[in-house]
């Protein structure tokens, strides 16, 4: 009782600390905890909270010391344990939480709550065996079903996910054990919940005991506990058991009740085709199964539906498609393919999903047949070149027919003037549809005729690509921006505009569209490819940072929480979701977008750092890059892009989504290889001169490692990374990657891989590595290598200046603009990193010249007659010369950028306006706005790059 009083009092005293931590007022939390500790210096929880406040303030060393001291006292009270485990979660020291609770449990063996915490701490480290033991302990203390089944699932996971799951016998043993555990419970009449029933079925299925699972699923107990068991479970089992007749009957019943379920039709059709294969048993009175009855069944459903549902019609087409695949003759039984499609179109052409539906069946016919079909649909829509849709429904049909035509490849071969006329027609249809059927549009709705404009933009891209000129695509962009004014919520328009802005290097426009899309949370991962991933080397550095920041914030947050999601499934007792959650965790933490964005952020910070050397170095140290340590799990990287979010109606025969995904992902991984290796290599340069910097601030275990490292290997990491660098580029050249196809507007933009190969990254950093080594050892070849590097600098300056000149002279300012900006950015990126490195070297070499540091013997001191190392003084002079040279080249770059002209827009705007069909007054402001976005974007870019250069000039200017 007394203790409880105490804890209530303390609880109240601790409250202000908690409250401040909660609202993120960490400084105040620290003060409050210190105040409390003055009065009660031994109060463990207050000490732990002080540790947490320090952690939050980024004072890691101190926080670490405080927390360690608290942990050493082996706390057993819940609140201290909670605070400590929270800190350990933040710092990813998950095994320490296990230790913490292990001890606490030892002190209170019967404490259910502590045991539960211990259990969850094992969950976090995926130690299934330990989980099992603790769960059983829990069950002894408190015989709740939940604990019993925690131990069952822990056994299951040992069999299917744990370290022994690869050994078939072990897997078998564990699963058999898990089953016995549940069997026993069932016998004792103790099965209580739906999730327990689910788990039992799952265990049976994992052992391929489908017969038993089927019996259980249809038994009384399951019906009572798990009335909501999904029927799909029945399908699955019947299929495994080969009970096709039963499956067939079941599905017919289900379909009669619900005519619109694709999952049912798919299973139904499969059962029919399986039944075809079954030889009739001689003594059966049943007639032999034929597809006639299948077809009749579908017809019956069609006839009995009062409201037309897509289901049975699509099922009939699917039947036809499957018959074709099985080399049966569908024509006689099901009818003519075109007729069926046309019938479908008549019924559902006014729904916007009709295009997707029909597209599903096009692969089964030849390209010629497709195009013939497309013409029929167009005819069927009743719209010709001289007529306009009379109703919204008719318009939607027309749109559908046009989309199908594109999918069938009907437009792709047309000559340019035809395409232009087509574009004009689409534009007119858009305008007509908007003014006729889009009157009372809600702000949250898409315009009824927007789809015309989307098609128009695609057509204009086709022309653009053929002519290699940006005129038409620029016009398409204006059209899209016009659509967006009328229909502010159409995300397709935003996505396409975003794409075009990026193609044209207009970062400001892209940013506007991106903000407009309001991409957040998990979309930052799945949609990062449309913007964030295009920003590195796009031309702006600082400007890209906020986008990286938002993205990283999401990832680091979810990384921290990732294990708590899994713990949730245990707390809520949801066995059906556990594996799914674990896989999800993997996918999220291994997201390529996450890893790439982290690396790009670090590079960007190194490129743009602008403080004095000490500030820059501490920023560098805070990144805690460990050059020797490749932290990326290359083989686990996960492709989380939602590529289907951008709609496309491109010709089926020219698009291979799967291949495009794979190819682009592979290239992105290679890009990441280059970028992360470049970062590590560069860090190894810096670390060679400031080894103390990294050791001093780094995490404690890294410090130990550094101490273990013998002196001789000071340059080993650098040399190793340099070898990998050369090796990587050799391999990349051998792989001979092709740039991603730019055939259609919706295709992904090319990756940076070819840029990285074209701009002399490889040579520059290779020579720089040599230079860094030579400076370190005073190698007599230093002069030569200084020359090599300054030649490279010269080369980069030339590339930068020439690229800008070319850009200034181009009559078409947009077509190559993105590529030009990328090249300039790449040159400046390299030069900026180089400037930073020189400032680091300079600091060391100048100061060592003064204080007379230890002479470095040559790394491999084989021969005695190696020439004398170059003196400190000479080195220092060479370095100064390099800095002077860099400064001059940076100034040349600056001069070029100062004179960089805003992109010449494709055509003079007057003739352009004449081209636009309706509402000239709107178009005038519209084109003006789009044009000024380009101009402003350019100005921002120039200002930013010049600021960057100014900083770098200052950095090497002293």
């Amino acid at each position, binding site marked *: 009782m007394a203790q409880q009083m105490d804890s209530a009092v303390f609880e109240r005293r601790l409250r202000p600390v908690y409250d401040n931590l909660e609202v993120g007022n960490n400084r105040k939390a620290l003060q409050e905890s210190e105040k409390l500790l003055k009065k009660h210096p031994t109060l463990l929880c207050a000490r732990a909270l002080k540790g947490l406040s320090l952690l939050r303030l980024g004072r890691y060393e101190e926080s670490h010391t405080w927390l360690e001291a608290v942990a050493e006292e082996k706390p057993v009270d819940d609140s201290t344990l909670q605070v400590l485990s929270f800190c350990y979660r933040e710092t990813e020291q998950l095994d320490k939480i296990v230790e913490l609770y292990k001890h606490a449990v030892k002190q209170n063996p019967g404490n259910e709550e502590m045991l539960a915490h211990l259990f969850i701490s094992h969950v976090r480290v995926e130690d299934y065996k330990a989980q099992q033991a603790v769960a059983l302990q829990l069950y002894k203390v408190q015989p709740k079903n939940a604990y019993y089944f925690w131990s069952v699932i822990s056994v299951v996971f040992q069999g299917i996910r744990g370290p022994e799951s690869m050994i078939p016998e072990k897997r078998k043993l564990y699963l058999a054990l898990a089953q016995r555990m549940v069997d026993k419970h069932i016998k004792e009449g103790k099965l209580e919940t739906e999730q327990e029933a689910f788990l039992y079925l799952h265990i049976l299925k994992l052992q391929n005991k489908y017969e038993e699972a089927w019996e259980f699923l249809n038994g009384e107990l399951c019906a009572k506990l798990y009335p*909501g068991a999904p029927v799909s479970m029945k399908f699955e089992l019947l299929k495994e058991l080969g009970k096709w007749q039963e499956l067939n009957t079941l599905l017919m019943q289900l379909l009669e009740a619900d005519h619109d379920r694709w*999952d049912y039709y798919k299973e139904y059709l499969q059962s029919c085709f399986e039944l075809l294969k079954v030889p009739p048993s001689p003594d059966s009175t049943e007639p032999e199964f034929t597809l006639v009855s299948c077809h009749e069944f579908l017809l019956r459903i069609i006839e009995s539906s009062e409201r037309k549902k897509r289901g049975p019609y699509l099922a009939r087409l699917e039947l036809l498609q499957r018959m074709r695949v099985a080399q049966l003759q569908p024509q006689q039984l099901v009818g003519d393919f075109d007729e069926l499609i046309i019938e479908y179109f008549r019924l559902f052409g006014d729904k916007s*999903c009709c295009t997707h539906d029909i597209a599903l069946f096009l692969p089964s016919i030849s390209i010629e047949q497709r195009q013939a079909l497309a013409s029929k649909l167009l005819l069927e829509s009743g719209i010709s070149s001289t007529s306009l849709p009379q109703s919204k429904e008719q318009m939607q049909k027309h749109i559908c027919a046009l989309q199908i035509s594109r999918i069938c490849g009907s437009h792709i071969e047309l000559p340019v003037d035809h395409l232009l006329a087509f574009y004009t027609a689409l534009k007119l249809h858009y305008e007509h549809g908007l003014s006729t059927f889009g009157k009372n549009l809600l702000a949250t709705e898409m315009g009824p005729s927007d789809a015309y404009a989307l098609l128009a933009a695609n057509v204009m891209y086709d022309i653009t690509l053929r002519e290699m000129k940006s005129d038409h695509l620029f016009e398409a962009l204006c059209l899209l921006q016009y659509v967006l004014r009328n229909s502010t919520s159409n995300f397709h328009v935003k996505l396409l505009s975003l794409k075009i802005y990026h193609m044209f290097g207009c970062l400001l426009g892209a940013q506007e569209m991106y903000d407009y899309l309001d991409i957040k949370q998990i979309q930052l991962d*799945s949609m990062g490819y449309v913007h964030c991933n295009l920003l590195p080397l796009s031309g702006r550095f600082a400007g890209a940072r906020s986008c990286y920041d938002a993205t990283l914030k999401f990832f680091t947050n*979810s990384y921290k929480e990732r294990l708590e999601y899994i713990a949730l499934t245990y707390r809520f007792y949801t066995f059906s979701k556990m594996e799914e959650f674990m896989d999800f965790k993997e996918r999220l933490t291994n997201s390529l977008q996450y890893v790439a964005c982290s690396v790009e952020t670090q590079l960007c910070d190194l490129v743009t750092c602008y403080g004095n050397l000490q500030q820059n170095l501490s920023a560098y140290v805070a990144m805690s890059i460990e050059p020797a340590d490749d932290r990326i799990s290359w083989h686990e990287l996960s492709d989380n892009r*939602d590529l289907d979010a951008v709609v496309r109606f491109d010709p089926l025969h020219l698009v291979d989504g799967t291949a495009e995904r794979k190819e682009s992902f592979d290239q992105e991984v290679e890009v990441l290889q280059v970028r992360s290796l470049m970062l590590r290599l560069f860090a190894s340069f810096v670390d060679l001169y400031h080894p103390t910097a990294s050791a001093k601030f780094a995490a404690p275990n890294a410090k130990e490692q550094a101490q273990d490292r013998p002196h001789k290997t000071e340059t080993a990491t650098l040399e190793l990374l340099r070898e990998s660098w050369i090796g990587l580029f050799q391999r990349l050249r051998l792989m001979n990657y092709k740039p991603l196809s730019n055939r259609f507007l919706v295709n992904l933009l090319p990756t940076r891989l070819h840029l990285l190969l074209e701009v002399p990254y490889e040579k520059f950093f290779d020579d720089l590595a040599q230079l860094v080594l030579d400076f370190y050892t005073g190698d007599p070849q230093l002069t030569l290598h200084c020359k090599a590097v300054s030649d490279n600098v010269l080369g980069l300056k030339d590339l930068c200046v020439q690229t800008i000149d070319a850009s200034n002279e181009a009559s078409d300012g947009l077509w190559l603009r993105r590529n030009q900006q990328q090249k300039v950015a790449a040159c400046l990126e390299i030069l900026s990193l180089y400037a930073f490195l020189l400032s680091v070297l300079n600091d060391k070499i100048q100061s060592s010249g003064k204080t007379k540091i230890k002479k470095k013997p040559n790394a491999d001191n084989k021969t005695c007659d190696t020439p004398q190392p170059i003196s400190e003084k000479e080195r220092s002079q060479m370095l100064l010369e390099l800095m002077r040279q860099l400064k001059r080249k940076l100034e040349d770059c600056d001069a070029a950028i100062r004179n960089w002209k805003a992109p010449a827009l494709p055509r003079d705007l007057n003739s352009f306006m004449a081209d636009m069909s309706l509402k000239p007054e709107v178009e005038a402001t519209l084109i003006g706005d789009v044009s000024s976005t380009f101009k402003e974007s350019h100005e921002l870019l120039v200002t930013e790059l010049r600021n960057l250069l100014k900083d770098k000039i200052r950095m090497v200017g002293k």
Partner: protein
Amino acid sequence: MTTLRPFTCDDLFKFNNVNFDPLTETYGLSFYTQYLARWPEYFQLAESPNGQIMGYIMGKVEGHLDNWHGHVTALTVSPDYRRLGLAALLMHFLEDISEKKRAYFVDLFVRKSNKVAINMYTNLGYIVYRTILEYYSGDQDEDAYDMRKALSRDVNKKSVIPYSQPITMRELRHINRDQ
């Protein structure tokens, strides 16, 4: 033409064609994972024959005694698949499990300005139970309708006797605490 199946974590990576809708909120991960972990059967997804996500419903079941009820937290259908009866299908599904769980009613909140949705819920048998003032915060705060439909367990339809006056968020929290 739909495949109805439980929403899975992986779907979070592919639901953009649905979630770009301006009336559909993209929540933080912990929100989704909590629903998935706690009420997995209340989070269902409709998939089209080509594998696209057509829409989904996310809900829960909670409350004490005769306030034990199903709740629709989010319902959304991709613009490409509207007016096909999909939202109705998803709502029926949720009502169905709520029946199985012996709930008394199903309720939901909807923006007062969301005419399309309100009209749809009305057609599905929901009534405006009460108005909650400034339920949605944003550039401009907006009132919500709390709409309800009684299930078979509520024989006397006690749960759907509407309030005569709008209530504030504070009052709502109060009521919820008492129940």
